[in-house]
């Protein structure tokens, strides 16, 4: 660790809108920069995205390196990786934080490999701690489906690059009175950046219902919902609680929920105020997807199910009895 070299957050925008994870990175980046006494900066690539850059300032970035070009409108694999590696080499930040989105997961290894530096994937926390006698940035990552937690450091090479799992860290608070410096970097975009690989089309539906990551209550059904024949009770419960429906991998395989609502290691990570798990036994690759929830309620018929080890409140019982009863009870209170 050192007190020279900035901390960088790579801002990710799609169609001029910041990804939520960028705001999560800024909250962690702010905490780290204050404890280390260094500047927190952000980098943003895109086309006419100065508004977005200002949002990064409002959320805590003191300096923005802004790279704008019409051809950077969408994520472009080689152009983004080369330009990003270029600004990193020029300004030598000591830490680079990237959101582990679909795009971040491709861009980060490309950039880190260009710089021949260390990269840690899917961090759930970062803090400065002592290893041996020296302070290091500790990268906390879940291992083995969330069964174990590993601490990783990058002792020598700089910058150290980490990706952070979306939906785990709190978002930075927006404050329009914050001032920051926007530094316009003229990107030298070359034809060659697009000759071997080029993004030709981006199709992103805005999710029809509220996304599972942003919901304050998530009601998640598993294989055990088979006993009720379908997912309608999960929806009913979610409606009463003002929450959204999600599912486990078996529930997705059944066609009850789409991939955007699958909770778990290979799906979404959520940290709502209340997570309700219905008819899921609690395999590690599922439970890792909601470990950040404030309160967890689990319902399953098997008293031995590991889900009860990761729940605050548990109900063992037949789902076809418990769920209707739960719905009635909640209606009373409403």
């Amino acid at each position, binding site marked *: 660790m050192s007190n020279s070299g900035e901390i960088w957050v790579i801002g990710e925008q799609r169609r001029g809108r910041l990804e939520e994870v960028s705001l999560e990175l800024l909250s962690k980046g702010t905490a780290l920069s204050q404890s280390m006494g260094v500047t927190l900066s952000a980098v943003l690539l895109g086309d006419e995205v100065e508004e977005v850059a200002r949002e990064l300032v409002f959320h805590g970035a003191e300096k923005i390196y802004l790279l704008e070009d019409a051809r950077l409108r969408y*994520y472009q*694999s*080689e152009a983004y990786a080369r330009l990003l590696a270029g600004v990193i080499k020029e300004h030598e930040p000591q830490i680079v934080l990237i959101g582990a989105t*679909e*795009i971040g*997961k*491709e861009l980060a*290894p*490309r950039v*880190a*490999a*260009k710089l*021949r*530096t*260390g*990269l840690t*994937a*899917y961090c759930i926390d970062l803090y400065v701690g002592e*290893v041996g006698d020296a302070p290091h940035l*500790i*990268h906390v990552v879940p291992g083995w*489906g969330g*069964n*174990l*937690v*590993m*601490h*990783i450091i*990058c002792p020598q090479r700089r910058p*150290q690059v980490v990706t952070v799992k979306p939906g785990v860290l709190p978002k930075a608070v927006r404050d329009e009175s914050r001032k920051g410096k926007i530094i316009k970097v003229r990107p030298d975009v070359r034809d060659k950046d697009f000759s*071997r*690989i*080029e*993004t*030709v*089309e*981006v*199709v*992103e539906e805005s*999710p029809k219902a509220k996304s599972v990551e942003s919901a304050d209550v998530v009601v998640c059904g598993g294989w055990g919902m088979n006993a009720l024949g379908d997912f309608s009770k999960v929806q009913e419960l979610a409606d009463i*609680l003002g929450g959204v429906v999600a599912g486990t991998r078996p529930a997705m395989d059944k066609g009850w929920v789409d991939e955007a609502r699958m909770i778990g290691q290979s799906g979404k990570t959520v940290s709502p105020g*209340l997570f309700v798990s219905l008819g899921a036994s609690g*395999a*590690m*690759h599922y439970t890792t997807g909601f*470990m950040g929830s*404030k309160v967890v*309620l689990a319902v399953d018929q098997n*008293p031995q199910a590991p889900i*009860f*080890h990761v729940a*605050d*409140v*548990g*109900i063992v019982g037949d789902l076809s*009895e418990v769920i209707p009863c*739960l719905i009635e*009870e*909640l209606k009373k*209170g409403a």
Partner: protein
Amino acid sequence: MGLEILVCIKQVPHPDHFSEIRLDVGSGRIIREGIPAIINPLDRNALEEGLRIKERFSGKVTVISMGPPQAQKALEEALAMGVDRGILLCDMAFAGADTLATANTLFYAIRKLGKFDIIYCGNETVDSGTAQVGPQLAELLDIPQVSSVQEVTFSDEKTLEVKRALEHGYMKVRLKLPALLCVNRDINRTRLPTVQSIMEVAQKEMIIWEARDIEAPPESIGLKGSPTCAVGVYEHKTGRRREVMQGSTEEKVQGAVARLKELGAI
């Protein structure tokens, strides 16, 4: 002519047994003895894709893996699916590698093998699941790469258009071979070996290379070549209340709702 196709795979512990993986608190080592090993599920999709491309354009499919001697079993399984040749990179000098050192090891092996038109990887493994080795390897090889590939369309033998998944949609990417693609599970349905293909395994080429065989500089592989290192492994403490309600269904439900109210969750 045909295509030179390479598939990178990893042998991993079976995910159904992850909860049996324990930590030896004294040594800090992970205990995984007795846990069955399988080909990483998405790597099967990568193998399947490689075989399909060969069937379409003709060519040769090579499978490569870095791992302990028992990883040869995973390579034999790939040969039984129809792959032509297996390469195991096996040396204590490779041990302790992070993703960059792993990518380096694969890079030196590939340099020794010669040119490939297309390289397939599974998008991520079920064990460490970083999804990093594929793009890092592509960078070292200086070839284009796409992650989360769910559909591949060949415009001709040298140009592809791939559909890659985004959180709420997809992206279409055009790229020229040679290239590296990291595939997800939507791309295909994997095949099972046939009796015929299993019988043919014994005749197929299986190469085992050590670090000196691939002329990998010692400082770029294994623990030494890893910029990152693990300094601690801990059991994950959830800090949950673990309170299971008692009584009749009504009593359990009422108790649960009361508790959720106390906790401010509803």
